[in-house]
């Protein structure tokens, strides 16, 4: 699950780094985790944050602001390159909701608690994000 979140947002090498950073952070933070915390939701949230860190770092390395880094130069093409580009084109708020809900498996109210928004807003962001993704990837056809 953590790798899916990382790979949805990042090229292979960066996804690997984000995966490692996620688990190292988790190991560092464990003693402070409250016993009643949901570890899965917590881990997915860290993975998402680490992936964004990597995205920012990749952005700083090479490309003009607002553009997708040209990942093909470092990594062989992957079947999900198109998906990654479409995700990157979402607004950060929609992308966050989509990744946490559809890839991380967090419920809307868990996302709401993580992001400090209402469950309805979390649901709307995820739904809008999926609609935008679908438009971009399939030319707008409905299932």
């Amino acid at each position, binding site marked *: 699950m953590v*790798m*899916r979140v990382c*790979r*949805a947002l990042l090229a*292979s090498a960066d996804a*690997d780094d984000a*995966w*490692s950073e996620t*688990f*190292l952070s988790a*190991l*560092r933070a*464990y003693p402070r*985790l409250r016993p009643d915390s949901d570890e899965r939701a917590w881990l997915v949230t860290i993975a998402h944050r680490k992936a964004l860190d990597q995205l920012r770092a990749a952005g700083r390395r090479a490309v003009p602001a607002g553009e997708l880094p040209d990942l093909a130069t470092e990594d062989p093409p*992957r*079947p*999900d390159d*198109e*998906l990654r580009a479409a995700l990157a084109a979402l607004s950060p708020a929609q992308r966050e909701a989509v990744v946490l809900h*559809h*890839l991380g498996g967090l419920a809307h109210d868990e996302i709401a608690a993580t992001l400090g928004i209402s469950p309805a807003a979390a649901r709307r962001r995820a739904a809008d994000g*999926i609609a935008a*993704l*679908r438009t971009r*990837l399939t030319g707008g056809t409905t*299932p």
Partner: protein
Amino acid sequence: MSELFDTISAPDGATLAGLRADLVRRAEAEGLLDVAYRTVDSPLGALLVATTPVGLVRLAFEGEDHATVLAAIADDVSPRVLQADARLDDLARQLDEYFAGRRRGFDVPVDLRLARGFRRAVLEHLRDIPYGRIESYASVARAAGSPNAVRAAGSACAMNPVPLVVPCHRVVRSDGSIGHYRGGAEAKRRLLALEAA
């Protein structure tokens, strides 16, 4: 909706193994690895072995659900648990040799923190029972300092966190019947037969 994400592939096995090994190295360097574990194939099925920096803390048979055992380790020892095969290569080799009949004892440190008090005293004594020998629960209770605590000695053996390495399978009932074993009565029979050969 999730069919949108079907194109996301998992890294191949070698890449993942490399990532895991690297994570173990970095966690160790930062002092973040409290429990390392791996599985070892054996004639009794897959064995889960877990070690702390002190020594082997848990050995679980296939019949004990390994995920449940790892969750209990996270609760009882530390949540900083990682699969780290190389850390347990030496024990894996010794287990192979033992099951092949080429080894009579295990030369690895053990961490008995999961057993306290009398249970621990029982386990300390079990380590002195030589290969191929058997003892009764009554004799174990006596050796552990409480001759009347035969039942408690029995449950200490049954709850041994590191069976095989601490040889609780060498303890049987005074009437000669086999008694409880974490790996099942059949496993205990097979171990005693192996050691009698």
